[in-house]
């Protein structure tokens, strides 16, 4: 029954490839989160106050599409769909764009929830003191918003990291894709993917640890 031999040495010989893949995964996660956040900010504002008009509709559509279709579908749309329209992206670009799209959708909702949680009386008070809308946002709303959305935001980073693994399906050698390629010769599927799983776990723990450290330093009162 159990006559399987574990060949860990195979994994170690290919370990640099896995690390390269991990680096790629982290890179895509980081870039897509930053871009996603930048896009989500205006979208969230349009959804929060706008409520109607073309901008609000754009934001609503983006959010609902991102959240109600599989991430893999979004990746296929970027890779194959745009390809059919003549825009041929590399798997790297397609994955990045798709995950950015996905992040932006989820982060918009997160930000909107945070904005709703910061009492409107805060803005009213700020405006009564003579601040412009922009000033009241920067100095009054945003600081409070930041605290509320901080951990949901960190959650989104982890979510994005998990989604990068789908790059394998379009041939990208991020961590999962690299693992798949590395084990193709020796068929030591289990050993290779256990190591990959451990790497993902480690990265995710590092992200959480970093977040707690940042939180401790930023929210020291």
């Amino acid at each position, binding site marked *: *029954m*159990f006559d*399987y031999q574990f060949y860990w040495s195979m994994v170690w010989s290919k370990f640099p490839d896995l690390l390269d893949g991990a680096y790629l995964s982290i890179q895509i996660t980081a870039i897509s989160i930053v871009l996603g956040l930048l896009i989500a900010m205006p979208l969230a504002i349009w959804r929060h106050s706008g409520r109607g008009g073309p901008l609000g509709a754009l934001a609503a559509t983006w959010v*609902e*599409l991102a*959240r*109600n*279709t*599989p*991430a*893999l*579908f979004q990746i*296929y*749309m970027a890779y*194959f*769909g745009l*390809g*059919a*329209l003549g825009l041929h992206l590399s798997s790297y670009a397609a994955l990045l764009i798709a995950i950015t799209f996905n992040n932006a959708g989820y982060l918009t909702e997160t930000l909107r929830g945070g904005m709703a949680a910061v009492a409107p009386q805060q803005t009213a008070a700020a405006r009564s003191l003579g601040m412009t809308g922009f000033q009241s946002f920067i100095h009054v709303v945003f600081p409070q918003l930041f605290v509320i959305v901080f951990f949901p935001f960190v959650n989104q980073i*982890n979510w994005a990291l*998990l*989604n990068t*693994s*789908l790059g*394998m*399906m379009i041939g990208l050698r991020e961590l*999962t894709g690299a*693992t798949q390629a590395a084990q193709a010769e020796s068929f030591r*599927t*289990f050993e290779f*993917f*256990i190591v*990959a*799983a451990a790497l*993902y*776990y480690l990265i*995710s*723990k590092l992200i959480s640890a970093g977040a707690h450290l940042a939180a401790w330093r930023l929210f020291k009162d």
Partner: protein
Amino acid sequence: MVINITPYSGLQWSDFWYVLDGAWRTVMLTIVSGAAGTLIGLVLGWARENSVILRYGLALYVDVTRSVPLIIQFILVNSVFSIFGLPLTPLEVGLLTLSLYMGVQTSELVRAGIRSVPEQLQKAARSLGMNYWQVQTHITAPLAIRTIFPSWIGTLIGLTKDTALVSVVGYIELLRAAQIVINRSNETLLILIGVGVFYFIICYPVSLYGRRLERRLAHD
């Protein structure tokens, strides 16, 4: 003589049925692993809230399941069973992995729900002479479920989308079926958008319902 060879055979009716079959499989995967996962989650969540040993003992398992990509979980489950000489079919691997995944997610919701029931209410119930099980059944459970339900709906929607990954172990669900047809017929956008619409039609109304429930809960 001109030979017209087109590598793509164009869209046929059989393709439509093929994709529709894939859609049915997606739904089936969702329903079966959703039900199994919910059951697992209810038991696991309740057990972890009431037993210190389980709470810490299973903490690592829960943490790992939530930090490792689902694709890798599918691959690992597949290879583990092969190693033990009990190879599972792709469908079995898919259902098992998805059920466990759903179970872990649900168990965390259940724990939060149980914790949300104020201890004071349980004290009041015990003061009236109710025993432990009566309190759990008539007070804790109804109130916990009210909190859990909207979040559970969100998790179920996530599960529907996650079924798209089962193709990595060879089970052909909707998205993979669509990909196969696209490869043959080259009708990329039409099919892909159609598939997207399908997922959207399933997920969007359910998520609206969940949000409505959440608002009503906030009002209570």
